Every structure is written in structure tokens, then in C-alpha cells.
């Protein structure tokens, strides 16, 4: 395996969890709901995925449990914010805190136990191709799923009737309600999907990225995913670009350090954040386009008046 290939693989592994969690949150926000519990759902996905895989020995079951855990864990948020219209910011934050606490409780006896890695794809002939073989045909299934998700969500949001309805719910829930669209129902669906994605992203951490369970292993990735959605102005392809840019600069700055170039490491460590924000702000500087893409009802509670 060449160095360039190895670097690209490292970048893909680092970007995938951000991408999946951000794509999930993008759908949630497009429906008009701001769920700040991404970090909490992600860490729940990580712990449940790990525990399921460790107990059964099957990483596939682990992935499934991670997805289910994330989705299930988003249910209390959905109930509180959608049915009894609690404040979305506060509820989301408490979901994160709850997730971090609950996950360390669940995972307490699994700290340090050997993990199960999700096997990489192997296609004889193709995977052995030089340079691009491992990259295109030899990664873990969650990587392929993440790319698929980006295009599926783009298609769903902008090419299907249901996607259009979902966006209209996020733009003006009162009008959508008046038209007879089940606003709460759509938002439930979106929140559950966001939870499932966050759970999958967590499972990627504990089954692919570093196949182990350590407490608080998301280490703020949920928050980065949240930020990516905003800076990408709620557009899936920009989320993809943002996640990979963030991953690339993260890995690049580590390489710059290991080469001993003499650039201050504090500056290098802040580069991924700086670069991602700058680039995404630059590509989103068309204000009209950004306004169109910003869900107008984002974060506002919906209480049907009749």
C-alpha cells in the first residue's frame, strides 16, 4: 500500500462519521427541527454498536444495533419537542448530556475489551488495483453507505414529492398544516432518520475507526457535524465537501507535524476548523441561494391551532 493511498484511506475513515451524522441532521433541519442531540445519539450508537458486536461477535449486528439505538434515542426528543412543544435547543442539549452519561453507564464493563472490526470489502482483481483499488473497492461497508446516503438524500429532498413536502414543512409549518400535511408526522420521520444516521456514525467509530469502546469516544464529532450542516447551507453535496475537507486538513496537519516542518502545532490543530469554515462560507456567499435553502421554520415549535 502506497503512502498516498494510505493517506486517502485515513482521510475517508476520519470524514465518514462526520458525513453520516451531518446528512442525518440535514434532513432533520430541513423539516424545521433543530436537534442539538447529535453528539448524544452518536455516542449511544457507538456504545450499543460495540456492545452488540462484542456480545454476539457479529459486527453486522453491531451496525444494526447502533442504527436502532440512535433512532430509539431520538424518540424522547421527538416526543418532547413535537408533541408537547418543548424548547428544541434545551431538549437537544439535554439529549446530548443524557447520551454521554447513559453511554458510559452501558459501556462501563466494556472499556478496554477487544473490539470487533467490520470487515473491509474485498473484490478479487479490483481491490488489488494499484493506487485506487483499496480506495474504491476495499473499504468498509459504512463508507459506501455514507456516499450512497448523500446521493439518496439529495434525490429524496429535491426530486421526490415527499421530499418537497418535507422541505415545505420546514419552511412554513403553519401553511403546511393548513394544506392538510401531517407536520408532526413528517417531523417524526425526519428526527428518527437523523437519529438513525447519528447512530450509524457512532457505530462507525466503535466498529471501524477505532474498534473499541472508550467513554465519550465521539469527542465532539457530533458538534462538528452540526456545524457542517449550517456552514454547508443545508445542501447535501456541500456537506460531503465539508466533511472531506475537514478530514483532509485534519490528517494533513498531522503529516505536517510528523515531517517536522516547524509550524506551530496549535496553529496546525486549528486549521481543520478554520479551513472548513472559510471554504464553506465562501461557497455559500450567494445570499439569495442561502436564504432559499435555509429552512425558515428551523427551531420553532409547532403548535397546531386547531
Amino acid at each position, binding site marked *: 500500500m502506497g*503512502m498516498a493511498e*494510505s*493517506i486517502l484511506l*485515513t482521510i475517508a475513515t*476520519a470524514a465518514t*462519521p462526520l458525513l453520516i451524522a451531518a446528512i442525518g441532521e440535514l434532513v432533520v433541519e430541513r423539516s424545521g427541527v433543530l436537534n442539538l442531540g447529535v453528539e448524544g445519539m452518536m455516542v449511544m450508537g457507538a456504545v450499543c454498536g460495540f456492545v452488540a458486536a462484542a456480545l454476539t461477535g457479529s459486527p453486522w449486528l453491531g451496525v444494526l444495533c447502533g442504527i436502532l439505538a440512535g433512532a430509539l434515542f431520538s424518540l424522547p426528543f421527538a416526543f418532547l419537542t413535537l408533541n408537547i412543544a418543548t424548547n428544541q435547543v434545551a431538549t437537544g442539549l439535554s439529549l446530548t448530556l443524557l447520551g454521554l452519561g447513559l453511554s*458510559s453507564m452501558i*459501556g*462501563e464493563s466494556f*472499556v*478496554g*475489551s*477487544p*473490539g470487533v472490526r467490520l470487515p473491509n470489502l474485498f473484490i478479487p482483481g479490483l481491490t488489488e488495483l494499484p493506487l485506487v483499488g483499496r480506495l474504491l473497492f476495499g473499504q468498509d461497508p459504512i463508507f459506501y453507505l455514507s456516499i450512497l446516503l448523500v446521493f439518496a438524500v439529495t434525490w429524496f429532498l429535491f426530486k421526490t414529492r415527499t421530499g418537497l413536502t418535507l422541505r415545505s414543512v420546514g419552511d412554513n409549518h403553519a401553511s403546511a398544516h393548513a394544506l392538510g400535511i401531517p407536520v408532526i408526522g413528517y417531523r417524526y420521520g425526519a428526527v428518527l432518520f437523523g437519529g438513525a444516521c447519528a447512530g450509524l456514525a457512532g457505530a462507525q*467509530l466503535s466498529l471501524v*475507526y*477505532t*474498534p*473499541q469502546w*472508550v*467513554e*465519550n*469516544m465521539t*469527542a*465532539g*464529532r457530533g458538534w462538528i457535524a452540526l456545524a457542517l450542516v449550517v456552514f454547508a447551507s443545508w445542501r447535501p453535496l456541500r456537506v460531503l465537501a465539508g466533511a472531506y475537507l475537514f478530514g483532509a486538513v*485534519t*490528517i494533513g496537519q*498531522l*503529516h505536517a*507535524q*510528523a*515531517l*517536522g516542518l*516547524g509550524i*506551530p*502545532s*496549535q496553529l*496546525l*490543530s486549528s486549521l481543520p476548523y478554520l479551513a472548513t469554515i472559510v471554504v464553506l462560507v465562501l461557497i455559500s456567499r450567494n445570499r439569495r441561494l442561502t436564504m432559499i435553502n435555509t429552512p425558515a421554520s428551523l427551531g420553532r415549535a409547532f403548535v397546531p391551532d386547531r
Partner: protein
Amino acid sequence: MKKIVMGLAMALAATTALPAMAQDKVKACFVYVGSKTDGGWTQAHDLGRQQVEKELGDTVETAFVENVPEGPDAERAIERFARSGCDVVFTTSFGFMDATVAVAQKFPDVKFEHATGYKTADNLAAYNARFYEGRYIQGQIAAKMSKAGVAGYIASFPIPEVVMGINSFILGAQSVNPDFKLKVVWANTWFDAGKEADAAKVLIDQGVDIITQHTDSTGPMQVASERGIKAFGQASDMIKAGPETQLTAIIDTWGNYYVKRIKEVQDGSWKTGSIWDGLMEGILTMAPYTNMPDDVKKMAEETEAKIKSGELKPFTGPVKKQDGSEWLKQGENATDQVLSGLNFYVMGVDDKLPQ
């Protein structure tokens, strides 16, 4: 009226005095920066606390609070312990230093112990371990085991304790192979398994074949074992994360110190002070030497014995600074004062120290 007030005051005094008089049970409280199952730094402190409970049994009551961020929250957490009747409070992170000093001033009757800091007061002691002694042994092992002649070091933050470890590691390595090189990557975090793993992958891609870390998760150990190279554990025994990878680990063993100090609180002989113990006193121990040939193991054990007996001190001249100027003359030892403020590399480190 005056009498009633006096009576009330006396009654109050009596009730508040009572628990103090019946005080055969000492309450020892611990403030943790991470969670007690982090598999590294905080877990090591909590094992110490458990040892206290086991050895001192009914004469002691312990309490702890986990995941206390360094900063204003720390002061609140420490103060709450001081108010709630703790006799001695252990604050177990460098970043708790100023918060501990502030609370110690407000509660002169409570005793405080701060780990890895340097500020003391009449009721505030500091304690630390010479982790760098273990790093010297690791450096020697690395120089023997590495085929590439270069090791990778995943560092957290450029504070003296970490710089000391890097320097000690390279000095140990150079005592075996004078041309040995060290690549350093700063993760700028103590605990982020993914990021530490990325750092390990990057270092391996750049040709190192031994990984050592001064961050707390088992991420690097796991990457090392996937890529089939060797690595050292940090703060706790990480052999479970790399049964065929871990060469040894520096294990923090705070328990004996905690037991000793709490006993002193019990019998009233507790005094402030600042201790900096090492392998000799057993405040750190080395995990079993594994995954290495017998001759390397033998060398490591001999070095460990020499450090324990005081015959070998890692920072002994001749040592040159990174820029080639002389730091320690032949036979000269670095003073604790210089070490505890160390802010430069010695020769052989392939990195520029962040200032």
C-alpha cells in the same frame, strides 16, 4: 432574651461540635478530570481510591466526582466537597491547580492534595510521579526493537511533564543507538481515540515502527496492532488493547500514596509538602515486559533496577539541547527545578517544540 440567644448559640455549637468529636471516620474526596473507567489516567486514580477503601476499611469514607472540566467548574466542584465535610480533597489534574489553591484559602481546616502541580500552602500539598523514568526504559526498548531507527511519539500538550517524557525517551533510545530519531505529533487533546489513532496512522505512514503516546486512550495501541508494529501503553496497562503489541506500559500506582496520606490525616500527622516520587517509591510501575526477545527484556529489567536503586538518573550529562548547545556536563544531573519547567528538546527529536 439574651439568655435564650446564648442558649441557642450553645445548643448550636454543641450540635455542630458533635460530629467533629465523633470523627473517627475520615472522609477523603477525589475530583477527577475524566471518568473513572477511561482506561488510563483517571482510572489509575480511582484504583488508588479503591485501594484506600480496601486497606482502611471502616475508618474511611470516600467520595468522588467525575468529568470535572478544568476551569471555573473545577472550583465549584472542589468547593462543594470542602463544604460537604470532606477532611481531605485530592484534585487529580494539573489544570485544577489554581482552583485548588483558591478553595484551600477559603477552607483552612480542610486538607487539599493536588496532583502534578507545584503550588502548595499550609493545607495544600502537591504530589507527582516521575513518569519520565519509565519513558527512559521505553526509549531503550524502542531502540532495540526498531528496525527503522525511528519511533513516533503522540503527545498531548507542550507542558513540561510531556516535554520531559519526550526528552527522557530519546535519551534512553540514544543510550542504545546514538543515531536514533524521534518523530513527534501533537494531538492537542488528552483523550480522543479517533484523533490519536489518526496520529498513529500518520506516523506509521511516515516510516516509524514503534509508537509511544502521552495521550490517554487505547486508540494508538489498536492502530499499531493492526499495522503489525509495537507500541507502549500509557497510564494504565493497555495489554488488553494490544496483546501482541504492547511492549510495556507506564502504570500510575497512586494507591500507596493515598493510603499513607489519609492515615496521616487520621492520626493528625499530616503536613503539607511537595513530593515527586518515582519507580523507587513505587508511585509508578512498569507493566510486564512483553512481546520482546529475552535480551531486550533483560536490559529493560536491569535499567529499571538501576533507576530504582538511584544508580541511574535519566537526565545525566553529557546532554545537548536540540540546537546543539550544551545542557548538562559530563556526570551532571538536571535539578528538579529545571525539570519541572522544562521547555526545550534535547538532540535527536525531529520536531520543533510548540511555544
